């Protein structure tokens, strides 16, 4: 696997610069100035960064461990829901029914009290725990069963898909207590700061940037560590690695769980910027799309998926406004052409220069 130290460093510098300059250009520059960045774009970029973190988490298990997960949307959404619950709690008695104890959608369904899992969600530390624990636990339990039974290849991919599909159907049910199809929305404050203020938006953007950078550093540490090398050995020759004496299942389990937590954090940062979390975030096709970002950027490197996620999402935002009726042609063609001509993703383009 070739490494591209130059691009690696360039991307890092670009990310750091982006994280610093965007807020400055939004808050510090006059709206008439040529360099001014609209708040709309700040939030948009913030969301892209969350998607990039999600793509990174998929790449960690796919690119370095060979587990093609078609269910990472579920982890992303679980993190998002945990954050969403915290944000809904912050609404307090400012909901349409003015009920301080129950979110609007529960009042609406005539519920007398919130289900147990809403307990304590108004406190950020509890919510933060849930953001990490919910996707982490699900991944751990799921992985513990799946890896011990040595479920591999497409079988593993498809049951991750079944998992996110089942979870989506479950969250659609109004009885579940997560707001059904409407999901959680109408957020007002985070940590006492209004979500509608420019400063909060920029802070969330910076938080997303920092989370992505941190995630990137940690992933880099992991893949360069001994564990990372073992993981790549598992990817390339699982049986051989097992026979050498490594506990393949444990490596897989911890990588998978960590990746799920990363995805959950991405979701948690995404929700306050998107303003809504709803079960369709868990739709199987959504998770496949994430895999497509990774493949397009180039899996097996840590910057590939980041580039892929940014590129596809930027293209999508732009296409949907510029060619609302034809944008799917452009996106579809982009996928087909890049698979045919860029076998190692966009990053493969730089292969020759770096070598």
């Amino acid at each position, binding site marked *: 696997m070739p490494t591209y130290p130059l691009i690696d460093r360039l991307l890092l510098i670009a990310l750091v610069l982006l994280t610093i300059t965007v807020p400055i250009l939004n808050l510090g520059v006059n709206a008439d100035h040529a360099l001014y960045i609209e708040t709309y774009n700040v939030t948009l970029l913030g969301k892209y960064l969350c998607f990039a973190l999600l793509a990174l988490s998929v790449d960690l298990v796919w690119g370095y461990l060979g587990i*093609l997960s078609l269910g990472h949307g579920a982890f992303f959404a679980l993190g998002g829901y945990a954050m969403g619950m915290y944000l809904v709690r912050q609404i307090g008695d400012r909901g349409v029914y003015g009920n301080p104890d129950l979110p609007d959608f529960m009042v609406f369904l005539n519920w007398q009290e919130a289900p147990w899992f809403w307990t304590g969600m108004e406190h950020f530390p509890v919510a933060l725990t849930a953001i990490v624990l919910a996707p982490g636990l699900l991944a751990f339990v*799921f992985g513990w*069963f*799946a890896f011990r*039974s*040595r*479920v*591999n290849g*497409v*079988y593993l991919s*498809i*049951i991750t*898909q*079944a*998992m996110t*599909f*089942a979870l989506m*159907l*479950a969250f*659609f*049910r109004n009885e579940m207590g997560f707001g059904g199809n409407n999901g959680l929305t109408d957020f007002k404050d985070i940590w006492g700061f209004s979500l509608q203020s420019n400063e909060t938006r920029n802070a969330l953007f910076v938080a997303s940037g920092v989370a992505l950078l941190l995630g990137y550093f940690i992933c880099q540490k992991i893949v360069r560590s001994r564990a990372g090398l073992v993981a790549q050995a598992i990817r390339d020759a699982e049986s051989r690695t097992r026979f050498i004496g490594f506990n393949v299942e444990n490596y897989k389990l911890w990588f998978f769980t960590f990746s799920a937590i990363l995805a959950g954090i991405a979701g948690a940062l995404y929700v306050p910027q998107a303003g809504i979390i709803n079960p369709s975030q868990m739709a*199987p*096709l959504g998770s*496949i*799309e994430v*895999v*497509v970002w990774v*493949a*397009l950027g180039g899996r097996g490197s840590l910057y590939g998926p980041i580039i892929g996620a940014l590129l596809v999402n930027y293209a999508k935002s732009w296409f949907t406004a510029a060619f609302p*009726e*034809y944008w*799917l*042609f452009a*996106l*579809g*063609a*982009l*996928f*087909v052409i*890049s*698979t*045919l001509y860029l*076998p190692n993703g966009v990053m493969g383009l730089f292969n020759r220069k770096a070598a």
Partner: protein
Amino acid sequence: MVLVLSLLSVTAVASEDNELIQTLAPELLSKSKPKRLMAIDEIAASSAPRKALWLQAMIDGDLYQLKKTDEIVLATRQGNTYSLTKASDGTGLDSVKKRALRKIKIDNAMRSYLRSLIGTLALQSDDTEERFQAVYSLLGKVDSDAVEPIRKLKSQEKSERVHEAMGLLISIHDLENGTAEQQADAFEFVSGRLDNDVLNSLRRLSETSADKQVVAQAVMLLDEAESRKRWYTYIETLFFGVSLGSVLVVAAIGLAITFGVMGVINMAHGELIMLGAYTTYFIQQLMPSAIDYSLILAVPAAFIVSGSVGVLIERTVIRHLYGRKLETLLATFGISLLLQQAVRTFISPQNVAVINPSWMTGSWVVNPALSLTLNRLVIIAFCLFVFAVLLFVLTRTRFGLQTRAVAQNRQMARAMGIRSARVDAMTFGLGSGVAGIAGVALSQLGNVGPNLGQSYIIDSFIVVVFGGVGSLWGTLVAGMSLGIGNKLLEPWAGAVLAKILLLVFIILFIQKRPSGLFPQRGRAVES
């Protein structure tokens, strides 16, 4: 609202004139429903020669008033215009647009009333089937005045079926309103019958009758019927399960080839199904007068359309991706977006109307408690047929042998002189073609629109994987068991929870058997 008919006894002398319809026009077009009903009664009581025609036209919604001349006309739609004949004498008039017409509106209650009116008229029809239908349309709707003439008709009736039906009609009346003797006869007649009207009569009887013996008899018959009905309910549930299963199998079986045998993660599978469904639509557009045969023609046509698109995809895209199978996911995902948008742009973002041929409409009535819908029966048979043909092709023909050889070991197959490129294209074409004919079947059940493919793709992958990648039998068994499982769970868990439970079951099952129901054996599988 139960309308009690006593018209057979009406002997009022009324108009014999066909102009009657014209004189009644203001009443027929009135906003007040009682007025319209009175007009209908007047028509029914008249002896105008064309009255049966008018009543039928009214039921069919074909009776209009021409706005310009106030004439009452019979109108039949032809494209965007209506061709007219005068209701009173049948003379033809110029075709007009719908806007030139004022409809004589009827609602469900009036339609039902009209049907029984026509029923009473048709009781004396020469056509056996018409008489039979007429009797059935009157079940539970006759009062004591109306039932007497039917007793007389019954004694003259030659046809066994109609005789039996009339007996039922009379018995239902007699159970509650007959003399003691008639009631006893009726009890004997309805014993062992499961007709709804009978059971409802018995139920009312058991609740209201003052005669203890009658109540006991009614309760006994009811209990007997209920326990028999329960069995039929089980059979029905099983049928529902098998039919849902066959839908899953039909949708997935093409994928069992492109994904199962060839290993291409074919995200465009759903769109190939969609193309098949659209082919059905276009065939029906081409032959609007022969809808009944359109499906038979659509099967090969859809196979060719989807198959060619499949070959095209294989030759232009997938060919370059052997050896990096996961990337077929990315490329075919792109293709699926392209195909979807192509349909939206070049055909329509709306659903299109695919008509069910008459032999797939309605149901096969086994007995009053059990009827099996025809479209489902056809699809079950179709599913088994497609499965058998594919199994034959893959295991009993030279092409099948080559396909499996290439799938298992490409290098070795080539060394043996198999032209692997050609085999790949043909196999992918076969899988795509089968997806196309699945589209023909699925067009009979649900929406035909740009989203058709997406609603089947996830289920199809799950079925193929649950069955064991590469195994046709696995796909069949997996689809059927998921279908039956779903229908067994649905009554007590509800539709959503049933699906969730099945998905969880599959996840757990794969833990037990990590290669599905029918795992492939051999070295090639390891890679």
